[in-house]
């Protein structure tokens, strides 16, 4: 597994050798501030918490995480470097995990750089910092879920635009699967147990309980399983599609 770290470091080196890293971080920070202060009414609420900040994260990630994930494999396949990578003594599992972790750590860095808002809320009032830490963790886990979906779909095509659009659509379905507009489609012809299962797939439902400070093991496990499932799928898709 030592080659996992080798792949991870190379990926991170590539992020910072191109404008990708800087553009992503700047846009992410600006957008999260805009959402928090204008749409979330951070000041107007006069409550010392970061709910207006975290509330918009699922929507922010819906577009920004596929933007990071789309290049993971599509770019390697397009340029042919996937052949270089997978003929080194690196296993496909190491490559899949290394690439995923690099992107996930990178998103974690962008998330960590929102720390001024944490300082702000602590200056202005007395928030429950335990809830905030839980919400940060939940946000990062949710980003990991979006990222694993994007990574898998990125391996399915050489075209980054196609990878992006597919990822946004699938992420959107996962995000909304708890809402009536999705469930109504299944209601009437699926048994209630399956409808409940679909509702339980929703990122929103699991994230909102974590972001309220409820660290339920089931919610954590949910995101870990989502990530695991899509990374396993990523490995299979890579194996099937690398030759095309």
């Amino acid at each position, binding site marked *: 597994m030592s080659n996992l770290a080798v792949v991870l470091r190379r990926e991170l080196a590539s992020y910072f050798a191109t404008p990708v890293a800087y553009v992503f971080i700047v846009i992410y920070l600006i957008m999260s501030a805009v959402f928090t202060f204008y749409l979330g009414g951070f000041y107007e609420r006069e409550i010392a918490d970061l709910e207006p900040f975290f509330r918009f994260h699922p929507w922010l990630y819906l577009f920004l995480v596929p933007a990071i994930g789309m290049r993971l494999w599509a770019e390697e396949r397009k340029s042919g470097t996937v*052949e*270089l990578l997978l003929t080194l003594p690196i296993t496909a599992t190491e490559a899949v995990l290394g690439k995923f972790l690099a992107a996930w750590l990178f998103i974690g860095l962008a998330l960590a750089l929102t720390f001024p808002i944490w300082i702000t809320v602590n200056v202005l009032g007395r928030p429950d910092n335990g809830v905030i830490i839980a919400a940060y963790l939940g946000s990062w886990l949710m980003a990991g879920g979006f990222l694993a979906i994007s990574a898998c779909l990125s391996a399915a095509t050489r075209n980054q635009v196609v990878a992006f659009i597919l990822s946004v659509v699938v992420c959107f379905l996962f995000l909304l699967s708890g809402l009536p507009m999705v469930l109504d489609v299944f209601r009437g012809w699926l048994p209630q147990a399956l409808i409940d299962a679909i509702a339980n797939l929703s990122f929103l439902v699991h994230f909102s309980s974590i972001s309220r400070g409820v660290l339920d093991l089931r919610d954590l496990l949910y995101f870990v399983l989502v990530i695991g499932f899509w990374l396993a799928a990523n490995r299979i898709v890579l194996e099937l599609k*690398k030759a095309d």
Partner: protein
Amino acid sequence: MIKAKSLSRHYGPLIAVDRLSFEVEPGTILGFLGPNGAGKSTTMKMLTGFLEPSSGSAEIFGHDIRRDSLAARRMLGYLPEGAPLYGELSVGRFLRFVGEARGFRGGELAARVHSALDRLSLGEVVGQSIETLSKGFKRRVGIAQAILHDPPALVLDEPTDGLDPNQKHEVRQLIRDMASERIMIISTHILEEVDALCTRAMIIARGRLLADDTPAGLLRRSRYHNAVTLVLDDLQAAASVLGALQESAEVEIRRGRLTVFPSGRGNLFEAVTREVQAAGWAVSQIQLESGRMDEVFRTVTGQQEAA
């Protein structure tokens, strides 16, 4: 030693490589020769562990490419077709990545990278990002990553494709320098390359092995092998005289040149020069042909020789 046993690869209904078997010993520069789409690259992709064979197998110095893929890959250096590289990285950073993936750390890693940079004269561009380099430099970076761990076998897919004549010459010289005690497998569709570089050539078309010989052996299959070509004023008169020799089988006049083909009896070249002197023709050129690779290639791959 590299051993391929009935190696096959199908893409759906298309058979890209069809039961290819061969063995290569160290010290050999083996050229895969074939038209585009003949299965050369697919064969290389299977040997290097990128693609799984649909059936059959291969061993790289005793390591099976399926069961023992990582160990097999460690014995190989590989330059994929088109020399793909991580363009955004600097040359030094890229070679360090490959070195780390090959298991080198610390001083050993630095020494390996340094020696690869040295061998391919890449010292001056070590800090430059790869995408800003010229094609010749990029190819050298691609070869540098392949030889970084000093592997006993190198697989280079079209190493000179797309380079200018000087760069081609340079890359061929590099390949020759690296060939002793190693197995080198290169693929090419440039025929002169086989003659200039390889000690053994395999002609592959439609996934099948059609010929496996030394370049000289392939040239012997040419109808031009040991033929004599002359350039002189009165082609018709000379043709009728030389065609009657018992050493000649046939004569041919094409583009102002007269070619006499050997019948296999006696020494044709001596007979022709004797006749030339006796008749006193004004001959401006006379040449003993070793054979024409393009003609052998077309014959073997089953295409009509262009008129």
